[in-house]
């Protein structure tokens, strides 16, 4: 496995975990909808990075 592919996969994993962590932090906060959208976008970015990691 090439170093580039591994780095992109590591980035993807980081984005997904960060997005999920944001969701876990705001799941009990009714006013956290905006942050939740950012969390979901981070997750989606991570998933896309994983798909296109090569």
């Amino acid at each position, binding site marked *: *496995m090439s170093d580039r592919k*591994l780095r992109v*996969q*590591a980035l*993807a*994993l980081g984005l*997904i*975990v960060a*997005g*999920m*962590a944001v*969701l*876990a932090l*705001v*799941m*009990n906060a009714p006013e956290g*909808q905006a942050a*939740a*959208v950012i*969390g*979901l976008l981070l*997750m*989606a970015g*991570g*998933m*896309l990075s*994983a*798909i296109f*990691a090569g």
Partner: protein
Amino acid sequence: MWLLALAPVLIVLALMLIVRTSSSRAGPVGWFTAAVIGVAAFGADLDVLIVSQARALILALRVFFLLWAALALYRVVDEGGGLQAICGWVVRLTGEPVMQALILAWVFVSFVQGTGGFGVPIAVVCPMLLNMGYDPIPAIVIPTIGHVWAITFGSLATSFTALVSMTALPAETLAPPSAFILGVMAVGCGFAVAHAVDGWRGIRRAVPAIFIVGGVMATALFLLATNGLWAIGSAGAAIAGLGASVLVARMPRYSVEADYEDPPCAPGQNRPTLFWGAFGYLLLTALALVARLADPVRDFLGGVVLAPDFPATATALGHTVEGGQLQKINLFGDTGALLLYAAIITYLIYKCRGYYTPGVERRIAVQVFKKGIPSALGIISMMAMANIMVYTGMMQQIANGLRFLGPDLYAFGAPAIGALGAITTGSNVNSNVVFSELQRSAADLMGLLVPLILAAQTAGASIGVALSPARITVGTTTANIPGKEGDVLRVLVRSVVPLLIAIAVMVIVGGMI
């Protein structure tokens, strides 16, 4: 609706089976599919997505902790020559070819699976069989079928942990049927190995060894798994099996002198003895026992617990999921933490005793990173997808649709569903993540014994792992026969299908009892 609910799983299967995509790419595609269908057709709102993904994170963190720590311990021991020391001891036990293959490619490979896993058993044992004169395809096939029984409670029970986490059923409920089925499978794997080595003649030579060693391993697995020590179920059973093998190898029919020399050491590097070679795993076993059985230690390690409070959710179509502290991670007492303690202590001792060559820290870190990242990506994306399916009611919808099969046919096919999941995702963990909730829902609806069906799920998934393109590729790469995956698969199918049928029969009989 039924087909829509099934679409994420079908897409993941198609990508992995037909397009040959890795789980780290197929999982994210499945996640997008599940999210879009969940929102558009199953009435999921933002709250449902938030809670489902937060719960997936807690599930994934626990498996990651275990996965990375298990990889670290394996690399720490292997870099110090510990695994080589154990291998040398195994091969010197007997020169009888069938018995040698059984010890190496049935018992020892299961020990490696118990402690390491993640494709490592084939990568370790296949080159040893090649050195002993086996052709490449048998050198891949024999250890592959030899260790499938040890996968569920192997890798420090990562797969079993995933099964428990996904179904939220107590491990104490799921362990007995799983350990029983896998124990019987252990004996079956012994026969499959003997047959692969020397046909029916091999089986005739191996019968006493298979029944004695297999019986010991099956009993040890059951006792460990049903007494809260499932994390070391396969490793402990394999250690017991190695002990039994030492005695069996002294039987007159197996007592033949072995011809084996250790590979040379690097200048300035010391070679570990058998005790120091196995030290990391012995220490882990001791830590697991103390942490489980000594109350003061258990209370001390259990002081810091991560247990988020999940809110209840409801979709626009009325599917509800209850809230509460559904998952918890014991930060200092979890199996992952014990593995990490064992890895650190073993590293320090190996370093002091001069077992390492310069630059070992970087090599360990690089190998853990290279193995861990793609696996983690596949696991987290599949867990995220499966949780969307659970929280939006898609899993329930699939289970409803499977009722047309009827309870008997469904029970017979339950192991095949687990196997299908593992073939496509390349891992028992992923199969359990994707299908265990579905199997639980279907078993509930049809009035089947849920723990038995879930045991069939994970046992079937163990077999599926052997047939997965990812594992076969590890073998063909190790044996240097790239492109021969189809040939390996054909031989493997002949060996493992009888095991799959045997599990299905056990499920039917178990359901009647």
